């Protein structure tokens, strides 16, 4: 039995687009030192807002724009809690997921059962949003590693006390990173409603936000790593479904565990390298998950 690798690959890059967007956004937030577990809530918000806009205007691209805005807006709840009121990030993120799922379900009622306008396909019969996701990878890499703003952002994430001492505004930087994360998650969610399903239904992100969180860890907090992670996580699903379709019996549950175990392995390796050798970099941001409060 033969499986054409190219067809699997093409399938893979569109299937992994939602998690790629969400994970890239979370990557930027985490590099700024913010652990936002509300990805699922922001994705579903984007899925609804984007669908509603695409349906109302008939323009899918406008839908994605609105989805990005909606994701950014709802992420400000998290930013307010963690940056202004210094609430715990883990708890605030979980609360955001709960709130987002409820809010989207509540406002989604009028959009049930209607269909989104068709997505125009781009080059190689792959739609433009998939291309945008792929282009975002080098852009975010360049931003983080080659730009001054990226340097500040990483500094804030690595050691917020030092960044503050150097005169950088930790909270503002983090708020911007959270907003960017929200916008990207919103686009990722909207990809599911506008491009994959073409309809709105409650709970349609079905846990994609949580996979995105795993991907960021797998990526070792780098943009190319996120792409690799999205393809690995998406790839395992695509591959097992593809094998099933070809009539091969696969242990689905065991196979779907594999990427998470791989993520833990990657995390252990990079942590061990950081711990036992002097080479810095490549690990989790030093201030990840901790809030900053300026005493001066």
């Amino acid at each position, binding site marked *: 039995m033969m499986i054409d690798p190219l067809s699997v690959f093409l399938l893979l890059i569109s299937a992994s687009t939602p998690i790629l967007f969400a994970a890239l956004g979370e990557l930027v937030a985490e590099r700024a030192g913010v652990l936002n577990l509300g990805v699922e809530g922001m994705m579903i918000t984007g899925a609804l807002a984007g669908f509603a806009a695409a349906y109302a205007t008939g323009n899918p691209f406008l839908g994605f724009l609105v989805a990005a805005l909606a994701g950014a807006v709802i992420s400000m709840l998290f930013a307010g*809690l963690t940056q202004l009121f210094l609430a715990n990030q*883990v708890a605030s993120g979980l609360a955001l997921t709960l709130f987002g799922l*409820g809010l989207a379900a509540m406002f989604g009622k009028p959009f049930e059962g209607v269909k989104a306008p068709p997505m125009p396909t781009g080059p190689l019969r792959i739609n433009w949003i998939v291309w945008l996701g792929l282009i975002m990878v080098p852009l975010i890499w360049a931003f983080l590693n080659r730009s001054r703003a990226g340097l500040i952002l990483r500094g804030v994430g690595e050691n917020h006390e030092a960044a503050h001492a150097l005169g950088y505004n930790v909270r503002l930087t983090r708020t911007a990173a959270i907003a960017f994360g929200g916008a990207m998650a919103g686009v990722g969610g909207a990809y599911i409603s506008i491009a994959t399903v073409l309809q709105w239904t409650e709970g349609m992100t079905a846990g994609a936000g949580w996979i995105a969180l*795993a991907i960021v860890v797998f990526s070792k907090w780098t943009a190319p790593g996120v792409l690799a992670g999205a393809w690995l996580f998406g790839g395992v699903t695509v591959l097992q479904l593809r094998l099933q379709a070809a009539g091969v019996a696969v242990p689905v549950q065991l196979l779907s565990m594999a990427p998470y175990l791989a993520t*833990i392995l990657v995390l252990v390796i990079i942590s061990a390298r950081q711990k036992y050798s002097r080479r810095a970099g490549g690990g989790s941001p030093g201030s*990840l998950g901790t809030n900053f409060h300026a005493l001066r």
Partner: protein
Amino acid sequence: MILLVPRQTASNGWQIATPVMAVLATMVTGGLLFAIMGYDPVAAIRTIFWDPLFGPAASYSRPQLLIKAAPLILIASGLAIGFRAGIWNIGAEGQYIIGALTGAAVALALYPLEAWWLFPLMVLAGLAGGWAWGMIPAMLRNWFGASEILVSLMLVYVAQRVAAWMAFGPMRNPEGMGFPGSRNLQQYPSAANPELIAGTGAHWGVVAAALAVLATWVLMSRHIRGFHIRAAGTAPRAARFAGVSPTTLVAFCLGLSGALAGAAGLFEVAGPAGQVTDKLGTGYGFTAIIVAFLGRLHPVGILLAGLLLALTYIGGELAQLTMSLPAATVQVFQGMLLFFLLGFDVLTRFRIRRRLRA
């Protein structure tokens, strides 16, 4: 310009006042939300907060509060200890699932044996399963410095898939007509975790939750380890000089919170849930994190927070039932409550000052 000044110790007055303020704020904004949605706000809020306690069917719903709150309190008690020490176990959901699986595995392996020691053995297996699943992030952190936040979270996903695998494969009920899911432990007398006193809702998990609150209180306020934990959380460097071993503390906190989460899973699968299914994890492990924070990481606070959250769940169901309020609206309302509670917490930890212009 407003300035936040950290308090040396959390303010006692505010610790009591802020949850009340948060609930009031939720009632006001939530009431507004209900009014906009076209529901009577007063009736809705009464249904959610009052009726489960004192409404017409309160004699049923009051014990249900205990059943719903018990796993939350049990898990959150363990988590809070780690959180105090700056050790972030956010994978309690996974430890809960594995505890339920290992506990249920004992019963399913010995079925249909009836013996008094079966249930205690299951509890031990549940504790051990949760402990072991919690020790994975502990050891990976101690040996390699891997973040326990991320490892424990990843292990939740793994545990969920293990549960699905078990429900469809090894633990599937041979008499279940081909449907996934194990035998129902409620119908296996020696393995069941029944209501202890009829009408109270109290099963062994409720007893365990009460014990956990007491034990963690004693631990944190009276025991030297509790002192170490608090020291490690507030001044890690000083704690190290005082001879507190960080690796022991990591193993202790993750092991303990894992074991408690595992026990919660076992009590649930042998009692209210009854079966191993692929939907074994219903989010108690994540909700417990919120409960721990709402309870200000204090055993008594956790007890109250667990009950408050259980109240909104049960009241939310009642509101669906009696007022046809959609489940989503209730979920939004719960989200608001959490936001307010988390936000107002700032007042307990900080003093608010007006910044004087220079």
